[in-house]
């Protein structure tokens, strides 16, 4: 993991002092709310209806056990005992007081963490592959580059007031697990014919009201030039991005308006000034940062071990093995996904106890490190296969071992109508209804990998456009309806799903999903995933079947005193809309 040197510490401390003073001036009335608003957003602080929400940066998802314990302590001390891991690999706390923020930042700084630029119209936390460094299909470990870019973008004096937020994502593997095509800039490591490392650069991807897959602006930018190249892109965006309309201000709209070729020409023109200049990355700096990401002290182990093999007749364990245990490039090791998707809680929520437990597991089984995934789960990246059974038992006791990674119930869903003031429809309650309908683990395993994404409104926080099945809450004369799309994908290759037809009621959705799955089961060939079948056969057979006969509403979902509906959610007040 990256470790701060004296300069990182000093900058972080100065930032804490700066924002603490800004908070003081806000509380004393010296700073007006509209002057303070942008300052607090650049420190990840949102004002909600009932409290302040704060988003803490977890750069490219890497977190140490010590840092995780600090997050648990923040949850207990300043919040209501839980936190929410986000699709950008960060963590959010929803019930804070502004007065406490300086102390929280100081606590974070003590473990080399911060909340810099986690919101606002600036360069946000850079996301990456949660299996970086251990993936079998990796060309390079992207984390040193992600860290170098993090430092470059931190307090960049020219880019603090961009037209809109700006997101980077970087992958070093052949399979894109970092969803680079739906970021403002997506970087994919490539090796050229001479064996040199560089990046294929995508620009202008994003979801929201206008979903667009990023376009290739450069096929190969040598790694030394990635800062000057990225800086040229952001500079052109800063000058020409629209500032008159919030919904047209992202770089994707600019790229679409002038076309990728013209945009590329402008960037290249700009790049002439800085290419080969002092911001070119030096080998020494790359080496210094890369030294923080060297492999831990792996033992040399056989690939499979008896302990795991013996437990194969333990069905629950082998389900977990199948879904939550991922391959590792070193023999005898595995990467383990701890699921934060349990029925009835908001996907990505974890209690302080779970955070502490995850830290404990990391110390015990995975060299004291964890990762946060953009699917809102946790990863222990370096677990000995011989420890898997012990790990499983302990994780299970903490509710962290639901064997559903990649399955229908490993859903990405936004807070929706249960929490968010902008919502047209409920998301979490719908996820629960789906969970309940498909609670047969054997069936879920048979269906296999499928991305289900739910957004409560057109702002698309649940990334419904890139779900294999995407559900969007829509408003029809004040009523809650859902539009269904299929065939989206967030990577390898990424594309936007197609809407299947007219919308459905809340109580119809579980049956709609059942029908989509029935078509899949009917049409699939051996080893084909839902998305593969769909790509091969096209959407027509799915659409025909769903609309062939009327979709009956699940009656119990209409009963106001049905448990699932009645319980609503574990929290009684709306807490956030992550939009800004």
């Amino acid at each position, binding site marked *: 993991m990256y470790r701060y040197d004296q300069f990182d510490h*000093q900058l972080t401390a100065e930032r804490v002092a*700066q924002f603490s003073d800004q908070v003081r001036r806000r509380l004393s009335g010296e700073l007006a709310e509209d002057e303070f608003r942008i300052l607090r957003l650049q420190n990840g602080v949102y004002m909600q209806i009932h409290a302040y929400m704060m988003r803490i940066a977890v750069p490219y998802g890497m977190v140490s056990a010590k840092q995780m314990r600090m997050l648990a302590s923040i949850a207990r001390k300043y919040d209501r005992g839980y936190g929410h891991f986000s699709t950008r690999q960060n963590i959010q706390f929803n019930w804070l007081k502004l007065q406490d923020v300086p102390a929280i930042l100081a606590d974070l700084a003590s473990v080399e963490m911060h909340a810099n630029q986690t919101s606002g119209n600036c360069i946000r936390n850079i996301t990456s592959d949660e299996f970086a460094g251990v993936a079998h299909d990796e060309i390079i470990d992207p984390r040193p580059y992600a860290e170098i870019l993090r430092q470059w973008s931190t307090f960049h004096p*020219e880019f603090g007031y961009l037209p809109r937020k700006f997101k980077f994502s970087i992958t070093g593997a052949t399979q894109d697990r970092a969803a680079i095509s739906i970021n403002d800039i997506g970087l994919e490591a490539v090796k050229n014919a001479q064996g040199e490392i560089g990046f294929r650069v995508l620009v202008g991807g994003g979801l929201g009201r206008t979903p667009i897959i990023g376009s290739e602006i450069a096929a190969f930018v040598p790694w030394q030039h990635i800062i000057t190249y990225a800086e040229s892109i952001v500079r052109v965006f800063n000058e020409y991005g629209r*500032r008159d309309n919030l919904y047209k201000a992202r770089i994707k709209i600019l790229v679409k308006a002038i076309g990728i070729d013209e945009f590329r020409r402008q960037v290249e023109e700009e790049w002439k000034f800085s290419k080969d200049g002092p911001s070119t990355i030096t080998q020494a700096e790359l080496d210094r940062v890369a030294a923080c990401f060297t492999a831990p002290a792996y033992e040399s182990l056989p690939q499979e071990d008896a302990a795991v093999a013996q437990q194969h007749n333990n069905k629950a364990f082998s389900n977990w093995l199948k879904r939550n245990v991922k391959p590792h490039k070193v023999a005898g090791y595995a990467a383990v996904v701890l699921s934060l998707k349990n029925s009835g809680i908001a996907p990505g929520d974890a209690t302080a106890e779970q955070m502490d437990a995850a830290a404990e597991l990391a110390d015990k089984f995975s060299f004291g490190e964890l990762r946060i995934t953009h699917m809102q789960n946790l990863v222990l990246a370096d677990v000995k296969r011989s420890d898997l059974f012990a790990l499983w038992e302990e994780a299970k006791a903490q509710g962290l071992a639901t064997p559903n990674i990649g399955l229908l119930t490993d859903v990405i869903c936004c807070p929706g109508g249960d929490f968010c003031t902008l919502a047209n429809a409920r998301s979490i309650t719908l996820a629960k209804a789906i969970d309940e309908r498909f609670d047969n683990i054997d069936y879920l395993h048979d269906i296999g990998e499928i991305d289900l994404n739910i957004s409560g409104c057109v702002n698309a926080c649940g990334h419904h456009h890139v779900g294999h099945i995407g559900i969007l809450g829509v408003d029809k004369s004040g009523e809650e309806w859902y539009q269904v799309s299929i065939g989206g994908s967030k990577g390898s290759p990424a594309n936007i799903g197609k809407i299947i037809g007219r919308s459905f009621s809340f109580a119809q959705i579980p049956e709609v999903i059942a029908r989509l799955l029935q078509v899949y089961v009917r049409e699939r060939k051996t080893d084909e995933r839902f998305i593969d079948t769909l790509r091969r056969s096209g959407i027509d057979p799915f659409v025909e079947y769903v609309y062939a006969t009327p979709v009956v509403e699940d009656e119990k979902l209409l009963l106001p005193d049905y448990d699932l509906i009645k319980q609503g959610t574990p929290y009684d007040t709306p807490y956030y809309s992550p939009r800004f």
Partner: protein
Amino acid sequence: MLIKNNVLVTDEWTVLRLKEGEAADRVVVPAGKVIVPFPVWNCQHEALQGRRELGVWLASFERAEDLQDDINRFPVIAVDFHKFSDGRGYTLAYRLRTQLGFRGELRAMGDILRDQLFYLKRVGFDTFAVRADKDIQDALQGLSDFSLSYQASTDNALPLYRRVERGAAR
């Protein structure tokens, strides 16, 4: 009052702003040290050519490149921030300094507040006309929010890793 090179000084310049109905080609530029809007310079170029004590100001949507031919004939160039959240002025300043080589006074004016001064200084502004209702003495403190920075900009052409030996004591 102004902040110039980190101290308070009295402003010797007058800023000309076009009033409703005034046209850039016809407005009368008063005598003395005046900072004129770019369109006025553009239209009255020939008449104003002889005046050495003349500054020009750019709105955030105007182009630094449009001044490039005679950039160093101006003792002052100002950038007007109609809203502090409009970040185009930062890139304008960066271009004026590093790409077009402007050496005179570069002034930030308009919605200029304490909490933006550090970034403004980094991209190349040396003079700040802080918004009139704000305490300029207090604003002065904003210039020293940080004692170092990671990336290069106008104030420092080198990124941190070329300035210091990194990775030292934790």
